[in-house]
Each structure stands twice: as structure tokens, then as C-alpha cells.
């Protein structure tokens, strides 16, 4: 497989085409599902970025003249119990979802990366103690940990991000550490150490780049999980709070109570969550296949 990649680049170089563009095209052909996922993610990012420009309704203002309007020409996805346009709230909700998804997963897995690599690099007693601490955090299910954090610090978007980030750290650290353990044994790390480089430099220059694959895989997995967790917390009433538009929040309370007469209220936000997480997972899977040689398809 490694051989074929080199060939691709050589061919690209011969045709005088920028190699990365060529590689991208190649990747899309080999991983159509992953590419589709990436496209949907980009679409959601686009929606979130230009939400104000493409919507006509106010996402938070109550409008009691149009409560529980079924989907139609004026409101494509209908309106909720406060008369707010559901499509508008889904588009603005993408902002909340992506913010939570990106921040929680990037911060969580990056901290995990740093901790995992450091632990593997120093090894010995430090590693042992560190591993036990990680074990402790891992022994609580994700949602339980998140619930506790939100109960302490209160609800609201920053705290939700915090609540989701904390349980991600040990999960990423553990995976990264096991890869880093292998890297540590590679002679050039030893060489660097005998040359007397400072630890920080060795860790950053030599170890970290070699564990980018598991790091990126965890990162993409976390994005989907973070969006789901945010939805679960909001559904329990402990997540993002009204009137902020957020998908999980839209499934809660009135959405459920009036589900029989106004099924559009719970259906569309649920679809939005599913689509977004689905897309993140498709993309993540394709990335995993590409980066993790053991699973790479021939």
C-alpha cells in the first residue's frame, strides 16, 4: 500500500499537477462514502457560517400568531410551540452543534495527545500513576461524568463543552499512549535522547508526529459523539438552555408532549442530529481506513 502511494505522488509530479489535489481526487474515488460524509460536514459548516444570510425568521423571537404551524410554504419544517420557525432553529442550531462538536473534540483529544505521549515517553513510575488516574476517569460512563460536571458548574454552552471535553481526555490519552509506546522504542528517539535534546523537543518533534494517525481518528470519532452527548444532555434538561437554538433542546419538553399532533417538532431536529453525526462518522471511518494501515483495504 505504501508503495502505491508513492506511485500516486510520482505520477502526479510527472503530470505537473499539484500533488495534494491529485491525492484528494484519488481519495474521493477510493472512499466515496467518506467523501460524501466530508461534503455533508462542509455543508453544515456552511449553514452555520451564513445562518443570518439564508434565513428570514428570527430564531429566538416568539410569535404567538404562528404556534404549531405544520410544514408548508411559509415554514418548510413547520413551527414549534413558541411559533418559532423550525428550519431556522435547525440552521442556527448547527452553530451550537458544531461549536460543541469541534471545541470538545479538539480540546479533549489534544489534551489526551499531550498527556498520552508524555506518559509513554517518560514511562516508569510516572506512567504507572498516570495510567491509574486515567483508569479512574475511564471507569465512569461518559454520560455520567458529563452529568456530574454540568450539575456542578451549571448549564449553558461553555459548561456543556467542558462536561463533554473532560471524559474525552482519558479516552484519547489511552489510545495515543499505546501507539506512543511503540514509537519510543524506535532508535531515532533514543538517538535524540543521547544527543541531549530537551524532553519537550523530543516529544514534540519526534513522538507527536508519529502518533498523528490515532490522534486524528479519535478526533473525528469524538466529533460525532460530542454532538450526540450534547443532544442527550439537552434532552435531560441539563444542556444548552432556551432560547439558544440547539438540536437536542428542540427534542425536549413540548416537542415530546405534543408529538402526536405536531410530529414535525421532534422529527426534523432528530434528523439533523442523525445526519450530522452520520456524516462525521462516515468521514471518520474513511480517515481511519486511510491512516491505519492494518485496516486499509487492498
Amino acid at each position, binding site marked *: 500500500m505504501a508503495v502505491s502511494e508513492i506511485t500516486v505522488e510520482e505520477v502526479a509530479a510527472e503530470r505537473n499537477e499539484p500533488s495534494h489535489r491529485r491525492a484528494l481526487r484519488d481519495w474521493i474515488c477510493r472512499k466515496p462514502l467518506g467523501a460524501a460524509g466530508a461534503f455533508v460536514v462542509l455543508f453544515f459548516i456552511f449553514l452555520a457560517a451564513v445562518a443570518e444570510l439564508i434565513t428570514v425568521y428570527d430564531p429566538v423571537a416568539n410569535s*404567538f400568531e404562528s*404556534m404549531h404551524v405544520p410544514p408548508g410554504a411559509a415554514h418548510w419544517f413547520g413551527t414549534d410551540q413558541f411559533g418559532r420557525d423550525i428550519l431556522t432553529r435547525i440552521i442556527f442550531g448547527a452553530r451550537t452543534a458544531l461549536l460543541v462538536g469541534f471545541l470538545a473534540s479538539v480540546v479533549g483529544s489534544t489534551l489526551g495527545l499531550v498527556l498520552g505521549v508524555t506518559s509513554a515517553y517518560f514511562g516508569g513510575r510516572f506512567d504507572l500513576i498516570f495510567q491509574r488516574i486515567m483508569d479512574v476517569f475511564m471507569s465512569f460512563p461518559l454520560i455520567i461524568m458529563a452529568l456530574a460536571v454540568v*450539575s456542578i458548574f*451549571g448549564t449553558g454552552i461553555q459548561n456543556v463543552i467542558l462536561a463533554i471535553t473532560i471524559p474525552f481526555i482519558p479516552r484519547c490519552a489511552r489510545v495515543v499512549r499505546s501507539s506512543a509506546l511503540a514509537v519510543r522504542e524506535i532508535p531515532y528517539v533514543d538517538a535524540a535522547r543521547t544527543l541531549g535534546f530537551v524532553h519537550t523537543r523530543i516529544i514534540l518533534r519526534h513522538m507527536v508526529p508519529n502518533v498523528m494517525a490515532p490522534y486524528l481518528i479519535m478526533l473525528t470519532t469524538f466529533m460525532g459523539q460530542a454532538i450526540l452527548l450534547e443532544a442527550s444532555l439537552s434532552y435531560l434538561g441539563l444542556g444548552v*438552555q432556551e432560547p439558544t437554538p440547539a438540536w437536542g433542546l428542540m427534542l425536549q419538553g*413540548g416537542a*415530546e*408532549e405534543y*408529538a*402526536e399532533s405536531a410530529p414535525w417538532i421532534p422529527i426534523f431536529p432528530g434528523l439533523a442530529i442523525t445526519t450530522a453525526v452520520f456524516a462525521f462518522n462516515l468521514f471518520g471511518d474513511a480517515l481511519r481506513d486511510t491512516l491505519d494501515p492494518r485496516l486499509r483495504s487492498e
Partner: protein
Amino acid sequence: MKAMRWKTVIALALIAVFAIFAAGSASAAPKKGGVLKFVVGSKIPSYDAHVETTFGMIHPIRPFYSLLIRVNPNNPSSPTDFVCDVCEGSIPTPTEESTKYTFKIRDNIWFHDGQKLTAADVKATYDKIISPPKGVVSARKAFYTMVESVTAPDKNTLVFKLKYPSGAFVPALASPFNFIYRKADLDKHGYTWHKKNVNGTGAFRFVQHKPGAFVEGKRYAKYHHKGKPYLDGFRAISAPKMSIRLQAIRGGRASIEFRGFPPKARDDLKKALGGKLKVQESDWNCNLMITPNSKRAPFNDARVRRALTLAVDRWGGSKYLSRIAIVKTVGGIVFPKHPFAATKAELQKIAGYWPDINKSRAEAKRLLKAAGVDLSKTYIFNNRGVDQPYRVVGTWLIDQWRKVGLKFKQEVKPSPAFYDSLRKKKDWHVSIDFNCQSVINPLVDVSKFLSNDVSGSQHAQYQDRTMDKLYDQMNREADPAKQREIMRKYEKRALDTMAHQFVTLWWYKINPHRSDVKGWKIAPSHYLNQSLDQVWLDQ
């Protein structure tokens, strides 16, 4: 004294009206048998009603016990109609300048363990409520500060001696939390035994309780109200989510829920069940309040607080918000159906109740500008993590304030954390507060507007001695017409002149139930009329 007579007149009038009404409708004789299934939205703490404050305990446990007096189960909507439960005859007229109440205790009452009830049991119960021994909790002790002593001179006589005459005494006796316990149980097992054990004289006997699932009761054959109860038993099923409770009624898993649903839910049920559904509605002795933090800028400025209330369109909310929340009635500080409550004309003179909302909001904006409020800032609005009606009303309020340019961030907290913030931390600019009582007793209920060092339940942190003085004056006044007049002054000062705290909308109780549930009448509180001895199933 005059107050009592006045109340009796009202009560008699209401009874007369009811009698005519009942004569017309009481065509079907109650049928015996059947098990009533109902859903309860809150969790059962302990079984000891003297300690607890939640309806989650009242609904499943109240049928096991009796009270000294209770709200008339045939006329529960009246705020002044009380009848005897374990006492005999009618509510006694006080003697010795309205300070002595002598109750006759019935001779035909047995506890579920077979022992006879005497006046000594009732005395022991009230001693536990009014003057509990050290280390024993009594949640509503403060309601009985007027009581000097409780005595039982013989087996069938119970005497309350008051320190001073008080119109608040009889309604306080009717509290649904005052379960009658057996003296021997208290003596032998101690004061905490009733937290986990049941031995009452109510219409039903305790069978079992599966925590988090259900409470089961069966008919008590020796119940002292002859011929009752009609049901063979009941099953109180725990269902914390409103959507489940709704679907349970719709899908026939339960026949009734005793707290209340929003109108939209009622309409959905009606559409699905048609004639199989009956709906009872009533004003509700609960309201949500807006409590500005008077120690925190900019809400330490009365102009800003006035703007807060001026921005809220109560008349509009009553029309629209009431479709999706369990609130509806526009009212002042007194329960809207009580004679002491302000009329519509009187209300419309108070800030926030003006008939023209545009004028009201323009004034709000002017006041905000005059006070120099920073409108670019986002203020903190503290709310409780309960959907109906707290979060729905909260979301509505934030939108109302947005219309005059005030931005709020809603911080919703689980109940214990909410209380902690509300009562101690004060880490908010404006908070939801609530006042939700069982027996309608305006003289007690409006104590929430007193200075914080006097009231003990006022969390806006203001001190206003004029309010305290008016309150004292009102309590000492014997003439109800004059009392009402002082109440108007008290109300105007709290809601408008000083703009201390505000009432949003009063709750509105809607109980849609399967039409085969008969004999249960809606009360203005979800705590009241829950002994279930009158209920029967038409099957």
C-alpha cells in the same frame, strides 16, 4: 369575629349553590368496585407528611390518612368551605373572644391496625406539627404561631387555645399535610417511624410501594365515612415525564393525573379520545413570580424594576402562552377567585397590567433610558429545571424583555441548585420564584412580599417597613372590607410603586381524565381533595 361571620355567609351561599347544582347532576348512584390507576409526576420522598412539602407524596399517601378538617370534597373550589373529617358536626365557632376552638372527635374511627382513634391521637399529631421535640422536623410549624395550646380533656374532645384571634387558623388546620397519626405509634416507635411506615384511618390501606414504580392501596372496610370508599383500591404510578403521563391517559394505562396539563395537551387528548375523555378546569393557587435582585445593579433602581414588569404583556400571555403552559389567569398578589383579589379594573391601574401593552413598553424603554441601563449587557435569569410551567414561562419572559431591549441569559438549574441560588447564592440579576400553596389563605400567602428579615421567603432582598406595617394592619383589622382596602395598598406598593417583585400569571389547572372516573372534583390546588374516598369508576 366579624371576619368569621363574613366567611360563613360566603360558605353558606356557596353550599346552597352547590346543593342546587348537585341535585340536578346527581342522577347516577356511585358504583362500587374497580381499581383507580393514576399517574404521578413527582417522586415520593418519605411517607411523613408533617415533614414533606411535595404533591409527589400527597397523591399516593394521602388516601391512607384522615385529617381533622378538610376542604369540602363536594365543593373543593371554594376557598372557605371546610368540613369535618375525624371531627363531628360542623366546624366549631370559636369562643372566648375567638381564641378557643372545641372540636368533637368521632367515636367510630379505627386505625388500620385495629386500634380506636381518640382525641389524644389528634392532640399528639398536632403537638408533633406545632411544637415538635428537638431534632424533629416540622415543615409547616410557622403556620401555627397563633396556637397557644392543644388539649384533649376527654376521649372525644379536642381544644385549641389561641394566643390571639386569627382568620388564618382554620384554613391552616385544613392543610392536607396534617395526617392524623396514632399516639401509641409515636410513643412506641418514635417520631421518625412514619417516614417509612403507614398506619392511618384513611379510606385505603397501604399494600405496597415499589420505589420509583408505584404505590398500591386497597379499600379499608371500617372507614368512618359510611358507605365509602367506592373503589376496591388504587394504584399510583410514577411517571416523571409529562409526555408519558399524557400518553398513559391516551393509551388507557392510567385514568387520571391530578396535577395538570397545558391546554394544547388537553385538546390533543380530546381529539384522540372524544367522548371517553372528561375535562375539569380550575384556577390554581400557584403563581410564578419575577424576583429582581434588589442588591445588584441595575436592579437596585426601582425604575429598572418597573421596566421589567412593564415589558411583560400579561393580557396577551393569558391568551397565547396559556395554550402551551399551565398558566392563564391574570392576577395580582391574591388568588384571583378570592374575595380579597383585585378586580380587572383595579389590576389595570397597576404597572404591568395596563390594557395597552405598547404604551406600557414605551414607558419601560423610557425608564431604562432614564436609568442609564447598559442594554448591550446580558443579564442572568435564574430558573428551575422543571418544564411546566417554569421553563416555558422563562422562555416567554426572556422574549418579553427582549422587546424592550433587555437581554437575559437563562440559567436553568436542577431543583436543589436552584434553591441554593435563589435563597443563598444570589448569583443572578432576576430569578423566577414561586408561591404554591394548598389551602387558600391570602393573609399567609402574601407574606412573601414582606421585608426579607420578616418574611423568610422573600428572596429579592429588599427591606420595606411600610410593607411590614401595612401587613400588620391588615392582619389586625377585623372588617373584611377594610382588610381588602389595605390589601390593595399593599399590592400597589409591592407591584407598582416600589416594584419589589412581580406576579407573572397564575397557574390554571386542567385535569383531563377518562370519563369513567366519577366523584372526583377539581380543587384550586393539586394538594387538595385527594383522599379519594368519593371517587368511583363507572364501568
